[in-house]
């Protein structure tokens, strides 16, 4: 707790209060839109295209409910988030920092005994059919630093992210995941000319998660040791032959390249990156019984254009592609002495693959009659195409879908007597399913993992969905900053099912 407070205190120092300079949610939104380099991982880019100074601290409470969800999510989810972030210069060093604390309580989850972050991309997890609750908390801290230009050409920078989390399932069998991740991304930018710049980053991330299992209400409970797409083997928590702790060490390497053109009224930034992530899953480090390994190759690319003064416009396009291989192990127990490492790997098998691609395009226009740090109207549109193709190889099972979605949004900011502001936002969208099939051909076709869980997951991703969102906020400019109270809601409708999120937030901009 003391360590967490110290971290928080350091972030607060970085985001120390400045006299209020018309900071508000709109200015923060414009700040990030115009700083093209900020949207990349290249911290050195802040030396050529910095954020304006700002600080914000906020607290948000949301409640989510509805049956249009993954069975691994809660029928009801309550979440509280505290965040502070800001940007400033210390000397000639440009800094940005962000700290968040998340607390979640999910009720009525199923088919998840072990995962803090349930995901189709990690198949080697533990599941059970008992409906229960999850209690989760997470800390996330990021810092970007850009050092002054050397020889008016070269800027160095670094981005660091640290996160730690702990969760606890509230009903037998109970899983308690504890994990951390630390990511470092050193970077540089070369200013070829006042308008043209090139940049590059190198990424390394290390993560680790440990999950312990127990029963409180009974002696032994059956669990499913998942392998992908409904294939599993049986295990138990506690009792004879009960599973041991699960461990997930993860390592990621990668890098990215950027190019920018920052003219008078036109800005362009192209960014492309690659990451390779390897996550092992095994039981008990002393005997290292391997449950599986995922090897992921992730490619992403984006292109951004900004232009205009009074009518500030931004167009961006993004493409990301992820290909994951799931590997399983044929192992032999060579010794009954568990103090050594008795499991010998006889063969490594490519048993599954998980692939998805996402392409999106976004447009925003901000009408800024009062200057670059505020706007009265915002209009925007988003278009997205998503395809997923998962496969288990022996026997062959597949899980795939393709969706296209489009949405529109608009926001109006109304200033009343200089110090008061009302902001209203509305958005609507539609997701259309182009096709997809879940085809299971394993030996347990009647098992509930197949008939309930994966069938439900597939329906979640293939239903056509109507989406709507809204937000209303009131802000008052004080002597030192702006206090803002907002309520927001988001709704999804998929036939007879729906899901809604309602939230209230309090933020202070200074």
């Amino acid at each position, binding site marked *: 707790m003391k360590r967490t407070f110290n971290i928080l205190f350091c972030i607060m120092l970085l985001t120390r209060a400045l006299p209020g300079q018309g900071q508000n949610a709109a200015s923060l939104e414009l700040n990030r839109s115009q700083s093209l380099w900020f949207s990349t991982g290249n911290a050195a880019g802040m030396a050529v295209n910095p954020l304006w100074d700002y600080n914000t601290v906020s607290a948000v409470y949301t409640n989510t409910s509805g049956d249009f969800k993954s069975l691994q999510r809660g029928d009801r989810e309550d979440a509280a988030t505290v965040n502070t972030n800001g940007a400033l210069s210390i000397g000639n060093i440009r800094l940005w920092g962000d700290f968040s604390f998340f607390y979640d309580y999910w009720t009525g989850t199923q088919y998840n005994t072990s995962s803090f972050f349930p995901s189709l991309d990690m198949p080697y997890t533990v599941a059970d059919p008992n409906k229960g609750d999850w209690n989760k908390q997470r800390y996330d801290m990021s810092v970007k630093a850009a050092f002054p230009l050397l020889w008016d050409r070269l800027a160095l920078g670094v981005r660091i992210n640290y996160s730690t989390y702990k969760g606890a399932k509230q009903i037998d069998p109970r899983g308690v995941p504890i994990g951390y991740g630390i990511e470092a991304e050193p970077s540089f930018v070369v200013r070829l000319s006042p308008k043209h710049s090139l940049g590059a980053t190198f990424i390394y991330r290390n993560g680790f998660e440990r999950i312990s299992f127990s029963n409180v209400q009974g002696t032994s409970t*059956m669990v499913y040791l998942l392998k992908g797409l409904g294939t599993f083997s049986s295990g*138990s928590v506690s009792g004879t032959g009960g599973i041991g702790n699960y461990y997930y060490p993860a390592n990621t390497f990668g890098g990215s390249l950027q190019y920018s053109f920052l003219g008078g009224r036109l800005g362009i930034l192209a960014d492309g990156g690659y990451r390779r992530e390897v996550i092992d899953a095994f039981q008990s480090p002393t005997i290292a019984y391997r449950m599986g390994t995922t090897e992921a190759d992730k490619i992403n690319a984006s292109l951004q254009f900004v232009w205009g003064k009074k009518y500030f416009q931004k167009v961006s396009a993004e493409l990301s592609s992820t*290909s994951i291989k799931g590997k399983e192990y044929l192992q032999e127990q060579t010794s009954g002495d568990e103090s050594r490492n008795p499991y010998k790997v006889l063969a490594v098998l*490519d048993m599954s693959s998980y692939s998805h*691609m996402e392409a999106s395009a976004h447009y925003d226009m901000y009408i800024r009659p009062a200057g670059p740090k505020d706007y009265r109207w915002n209009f925007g549109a988003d278009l997205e195409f998503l395809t997923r*193709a998962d496969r288990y*190889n*022996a026997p062959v099972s597949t899980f795939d879908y393709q969706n296209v979605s489009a949405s529109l949004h608009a926001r109006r900011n109304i200033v009343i007597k200089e110090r008061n502001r009302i902001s209203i936002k509305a958005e609507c969208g539609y997701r259309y399913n182009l096709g997809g099939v879940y085809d299971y051909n*394993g*030996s347990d076709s009647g098992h509930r993992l197949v008939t309930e869980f994966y069938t439900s997951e597939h329906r979640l991703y293939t239903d056509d969905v109507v989406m709507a969102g809204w937000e209303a906020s009131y802000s008052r400019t004080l002597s030192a900053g702006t206090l803002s109270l907002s309520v927001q809601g988001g709704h999804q409708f998929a036939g007879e099912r729906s899901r809604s999120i309602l939230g209230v937030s309090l933020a202070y901009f200074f």
Partner: protein
Amino acid sequence: MKKNLLILAVFASAAIVGCNKTEGPETYTATITLEAEEGVTIPDGIEFNIVATNFDTKQEKTVKAENNVAEVKGLIAGNYTFMASAEYVSESGSKSIYSGSLTNVSILQDEALAMKIDRAQASTLVLKELYYNCSKTAANKPYMKEQFYEIYNNSEEVVYADGLCFGHLMPESATGLANYDWGAEYPLDKYVFFGRIMQVPGKVGDKNYPVAPGESIILCQYATDHTVPALNPNSINLSSGEFEYYETTNTMQTDQPAVNLKMVYPINPSSPYKIWTMTVNGPAMAMFYPEEDFSVDKVLTDNNNKVTQCYPIPASLILDAVEAIKDETQVKNKRVPTSLDAGYIWVVDDAGEPALQVGKSIVRKVAETREDGRVILQDTNNTTNDFELKKREIRRYGAKIPAWNTWAK
């Protein structure tokens, strides 16, 4: 518009799948040569089915052998069980089953394997219905007194139950202590190790308890009507059962008209067991006619490794055996030698989950129904293939009551 989007989706999907197209794991071929056990002759022209089962994926591949050689292709690296079986009907009409198995075979490359084939006479008596899982009372408490085991005459001739033995094998639950090594004198594929043996009164050769073709005898823990309010209305009426175990000092049970079984092992006349129960977690069960008297001298004892006692019986005497386990995690701890029975089964509830006290039996499947309505039950010496789960019932498929059972109503 929709068509254009669909075409775009197809191309994008093909691109993404193509970029990550995985051919799957490498596959291998197992070439199995069938060889007769010593003293066995495999008839000409007999056709063997070979089933290869991957222990992890449960995927099965079935091929037919040609000239007693089978090639099983497309096997991914893994641990496999290979089972061969063939049925042969002689000119005299007697049926024999030729079978063999190889268990826990690691396939890491193309392999050439040799499998020994043994011959078993299709058993006259078979284990037909085994109810050990039990049920619950209205107060949701486990009710164990209703366990029963039905033995059926599956042949064309009268069989006599005098001296017939039935019991469970050790360990009682299929834990890691299965396949305990009792030494060179008791090889695991040549012996079975009983934890309890119940015997029908009389000696082998007596003719007090004839069982005609199509008749059943039911061995009960307690052969009474369990559905009375004082016991468990959710239970079953076993008052027509032929045999029960009654020990005079057991105050929880009264002696019923059924014939009293003898508990011949454990041998403890000064302090006999009061009740006869089997584990609800899945016992391995077998029956045989003994060739010699039971003796304390034959009992195997080893207090190390927490294995206590068992009684070894040669596998060659076993008429029929069934492997029931608690769930999939116990598959590797089979107690019945594969040469006697290559499979296993466990009880699940209506949702498909392993469960206790759900009122289900393991029941042998019907292979054929004769014109007179008499059924012939399936017997390939493989519990996995031969048995299924059903709600417990006595004398299903029209099994008849032996004439000497005068108390059955």
